[in-house]
């Protein structure tokens, strides 16, 4: 089951909002409403809303300033932002749009119009997210061939910074790596380490890696090596556990015929709370308050005892696990080419900032590079002579094999 899109609304005047809230709820959105922007700051960090609607004249803070402060929060940087305003002045609208606000809606508004605009904006975000997987500047691939642990190891060895985007079913997560160290991870509204550990277990889906500098305060302090080590350990256990289960994309429901809360342990009761709406097995793993290993053990027990059972997919789950829209350019290339590209990024060019930490040194490096390039041209035009002949080389190869 797709998780509901979350909308945060900040507006002093709740009378405008009540109709909008009902309309959005009917359309399947989850709405969180605050009448002041201070609460909104906290909510953004906890809720990870998919879109924010705010009155431009919030009671405690001027709208544009609120927008700028909100965008300074790392969690809010990529969230679409829409201003609601009773002001019809064109200057104000232009000023807002210039700051990067995604849309501007005049009050009073038609609820249907607002819903349509929100839907459009969310579709744009979705398209953007998916296009990142096809961006040729990044490299991308399939998690069945390389999982998150492999990807982090590669960045770690090269001391590289980059953003790893992962997609599994309807879930999209992000891992930020700064100079080979895991700095942050986001998935739904999980805590960074929790999100990371859950994504370590994704064995199918898609990934994209963009090598880029990360300007993000570290949210994960644990050593990357120990995180990877934990991830490996959990992954081994996870593989053993899911081997005896249906696909994680299988929907499950409570088996009303024999289900009785009295027969369940406290942990089992807790997990079954998340099975009421026929989610996929993985939906339960994501939402469960327990770690994935414990949760999957419980699901396995419940399935074995027939307390829960498989059920047909929900309407929006009839598409394959991996959406066809997510087919990436690299899928058509061979595995070897893909790894070449990854390793070339790591080893072909040294991580320049490691050698030249400041701007002045970068300039020096450019001069040195130019000199080196000149030398390369001089030397590489002459092919190195091989001091042995073909038969001798073949003898060596034979001896070594």
């Amino acid at each position, binding site marked *: 089951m797709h998780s509901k899109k979350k909308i945060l609304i900040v507006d002093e005047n709740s009378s405008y909002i009540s109709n909008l809230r009902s309309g959005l709820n009917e359309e399947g959105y989850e709405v969180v409403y605050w009448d002041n922007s201070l609460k909104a700051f906290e909510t953004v960090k906890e809720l990870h809303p998919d879109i924010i609607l705010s009155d431009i004249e919030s009671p405690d803070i001027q709208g544009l300033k609120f927008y700028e402060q909100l965008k300074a929060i790392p969690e809010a940087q990529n969230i679409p932002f829409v201003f609601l305003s009773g002001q019809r002045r064109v200057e104000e609208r232009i000023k807002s749009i210039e700051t990067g606000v995604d849309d501007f809606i005049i009050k009073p508004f038609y609820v249907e119009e607002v819903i349509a605009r929100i839907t459009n904006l969310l579709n744009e975000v979705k398209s953007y997210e998916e296009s990142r997987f096809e961006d040729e500047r990044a490299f991308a691939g399939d998690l069945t061939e390389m999982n998150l642990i492999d990807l982090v190891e590669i960045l770690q060895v090269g001391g590289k910074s980059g953003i790893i985007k992962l997609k599994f079913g309807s879930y999209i997560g992000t891992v930020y790596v700064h100079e080979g160290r895991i700095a942050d991870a986001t998935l739904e509204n999980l805590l960074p380490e929790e999100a990371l550990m859950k994504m370590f277990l994704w064995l199918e889906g898609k990934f994209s890696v963009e090598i880029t500098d990360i300007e993000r305060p570290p949210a994960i302090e644990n050593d990357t090596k120990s995180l990877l080590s934990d991830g490996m350990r959990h992954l081994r256990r996870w593989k053993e556990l899911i081997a005896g289960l249906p696909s994680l994309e299988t929907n499950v429901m409570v088996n009303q015929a024999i289900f009785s809360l009295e027969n369940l342990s406290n942990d089992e009761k807790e997990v079954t709370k998340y099975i009421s709406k026929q989610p996929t097995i993985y939906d339960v793993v994501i939402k469960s308050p327990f770690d994935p290993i414990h949760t999957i053990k419980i699901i396995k027990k419940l399935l074995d005892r027939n307390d829960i059972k498989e059920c047909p997919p929900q309407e929006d789950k009839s598409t394959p696990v991996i959406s066809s829209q997510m087919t990436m350019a690299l899928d058509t290339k061979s595995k070897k080419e893909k790894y070449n590209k990854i390793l070339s990024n790591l080893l072909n060019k040294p991580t320049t900032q490691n050698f030249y930490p400041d701007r002045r040194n970068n300039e020096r490096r450019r001069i040195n590079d130019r000199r080196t390039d000149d030398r*390369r041209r001089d030397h590489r035009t002459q092919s190195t002579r091989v001091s042995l002949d073909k038969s001798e080389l073949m*003898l060596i190869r034979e001896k070594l094999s």
Partner: protein
Amino acid sequence: MRVGEFTVISPRNAMKDIFMESICGHITHIDDRISFSSLDINKNLAIHFYGIKIDFKDNNISWDLLTPKILGHIFLFNWEDEGTLKTIEKMLDHLAGISTTPIMVIANVNGNNDLPMPEKFVEPNGFALEPTVRFTYCQLSDSKCTKRAVSGIVNILLERLP
């Protein structure tokens, strides 16, 4: 006797020594940075390995004189220790830039580590990073693996010959 020569460059003495010993079965220490070993192919042909330990700022090796006589360079670093990669990185880039001598970059993996070698990366001749630079994984004490890496260099040379 005809001789084919290889350099084995690593940030630690133990790495190059284990590598050379796994192929030749013996090793001679010339000084605290240089070691030597040889393997007879037949009574008229042998291969020599010159093990060189390098430091991060090493730039006092006369590569321009040495390189034309060398069949290939083998760079070693520890898969779990990015510091060792950084140590060889600069020299690797320099050598790849000044000649077309084949280079094999080997990530050393230990059998007991927590980050096992990704099996899917293992290719008989290594992955080509550039036409003359390849990358592979190896357990340095595993002679089968180290010999395969040297064969990878020989294969590059054979591909070049008419």
